[in-house]
């Protein structure tokens, strides 16, 4: 369990993270979402004690991580796949890490096997693709068999097969009762991975809730109705409190479920050609909620 409490980090005059409070629970995959530069990496560094918070606290399983003598059995982390020395082999890199934490050497082979790098274990990391480095970083995180795992943008550079594998791995780790905290700036990456979401923008918390609750926030959810009697139905639905957009014979309805729309149409003998429920798009919800907090927005399209 990771508990972040009123966490603030300032670098000189800029505030990278402001008053963040959230909890990451065991047994599920929690996505950590935010646009580029929103403070995700800063937050993760503070979780790991690499950066000291200006104010506030963060604990992992009840203790600040910096208080631990050795870390790998408590938290496994992949912060940046580039944080390795290119001149070493994957096996040598992991052997040194394992040794520092008194983890048996045999474990190195096990995790390399697990991430699919066993065949490349003796090659220099400098020659690895980004996807292979991500796998190596994941192997390092798994080394200590820890109850808490942190991954910063782990899907970058992975091929589709790799993405599928990583998602499966995260689910598996969570199912074993571990806390799995995964950051990303792309909602689509989280859609099939996370159960819970922590969303931040410009260093401030926007949402900390389940994926389904978050999706419901987006205005994209609703019902599409096609009827020759659009104006009458629109009036009835508005009377029921729905938001309706009329576009020829197509109505886009939000706020009233499809079943109720069907009932109303039947009661008033309105012919329906089509009635479809559209699921909320997570991407839409994410874009809407973070629109105000995008640090580097592209210019308006003309």
């Amino acid at each position: 369990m990771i508990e972040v409490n009123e966490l603030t980090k300032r670098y000189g005059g800029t505030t990278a993270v402001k008053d963040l409070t959230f909890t990451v629970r065991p047994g599920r995959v929690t996505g950590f979402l935010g646009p580029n530069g929103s403070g995700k990496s800063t937050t993760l560094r503070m979780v790991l004690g690499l950066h000291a918070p200006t104010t506030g606290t963060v604990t992992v399983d009840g203790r600040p991580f910096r208080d631990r003598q050795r870390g790998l059995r408590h938290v496994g982390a992949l912060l940046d796949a580039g944080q390795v020395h290119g001149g070493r082999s994957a096996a040598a890199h992991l052997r040194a890490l394992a040794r520092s934490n008194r983890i048996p050497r045999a474990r190195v082979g096990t995790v390399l096997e697990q991430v699919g790098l066993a065949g490349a274990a003796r090659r220099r990391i400098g020659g690895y693709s980004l996807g292979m480095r991500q796998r190596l970083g994941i192997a390092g995180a798994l080394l200590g068999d820890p109850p808490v795992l942190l991954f910063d943008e782990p899907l970058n550079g992975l091929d589709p097969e790799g993405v599928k594998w990583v998602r499966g791995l995260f689910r598996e780790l969570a199912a074993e009762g571990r806390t799995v905290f995964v950051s990303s700036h792309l909602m689509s990456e989280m859609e099939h991975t996370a159960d819970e979401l922590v969303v931040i923008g410009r260093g401030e918390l926007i949402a900390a809730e389940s994926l389904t609750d978050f999706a419901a926030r987006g205005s994209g959810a609703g019902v599409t109705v096609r009827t020759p009697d659009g104006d009458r139905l629109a009036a009835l639905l508005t009377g029921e409190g729905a938001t309706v957009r009329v576009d020829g014979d197509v109505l886009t309805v939000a706020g009233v479920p499809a079943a109720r729309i069907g009932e109303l149409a039947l009661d008033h003998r309105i012919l329906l050609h089509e009635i479809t429920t559209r699921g909320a798009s997570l991407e839409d919800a994410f874009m809407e909620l973070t629109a105000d907090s995008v640090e580097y927005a592209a210019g308006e399209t003309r």
Partner: protein
Amino acid sequence: MTTTFASHTAEPRPRFFDLAAAEWLKLWSLRSTGWSLLVAALAVLAFNAGKAWDNVRYWPDEAGYAEKFIADGIPLMHAFTTDAGTVMMLATGAFGALAVTGEYSTGLIRTTFAAVPARRSVMAAKVCVVAAVMTVFGAVVAAVSFAATQAILSTEDAGVSLDHPGAPRLVIASALLAPVAALVGAALGTLIRHGAGAVVGSVLVLLLLPLVLGEDRHWSAVLAHATPYVAWMRLGDSQYDPGAVPYPWTAGGAWTVYALWALAAAAVAVTTVHRRDQ
């Protein structure tokens, strides 16, 4: 619904030895380590042996020259020349600096400190490994230099053995120059956190600083004596004449300078990482 994960094994007691072993693995798993040490050793050896060879090649054909040569302490001067000392400090200072900054330039330091949050212990382990490797390196280079130069001079019967007065001190002081310079480099590495910057910094501190400090004024002489390079020259000088310089000092003082630099540099390397964001 959720189960809480229980680790399979209890956590073993943390040991400093494991950190040192990890640093050892890190050092020797880089191919550049062995090569750079070999090149540095050969360079130092070349400067020393070259000087001895030069002497032998242009050996004057006069009676009693070898005895005078030995009486003037010249065999010991050739056993570890000032050029070789300069190269040795340059190479080992850079070695110490890069042992630290190599982790910063790649960001590996974050991986390291996330694995071992006890940062000071990590740096202490690194300092121990660098100091140990450099001491062995210095000892081998100084011993081989002594043996090679005296063997070359012996062709004209001008070589001395290790029991010659001043010889053990020269060999030990030259050997220890390596760990002292490497620790200074490592300390600058933790302060500057940038490879090229740390190497330039160690050249400034180890080599340029003693050049600008003269022996003529008292304050300047004191500062000069406080540099490892001048301390090494004092320890290597078997013919040191306190009457010949305005501000003489003792070999004990020179050993103290060695010790203080090593300890201060180690302290800086270990404590700097504690508070700073990584």
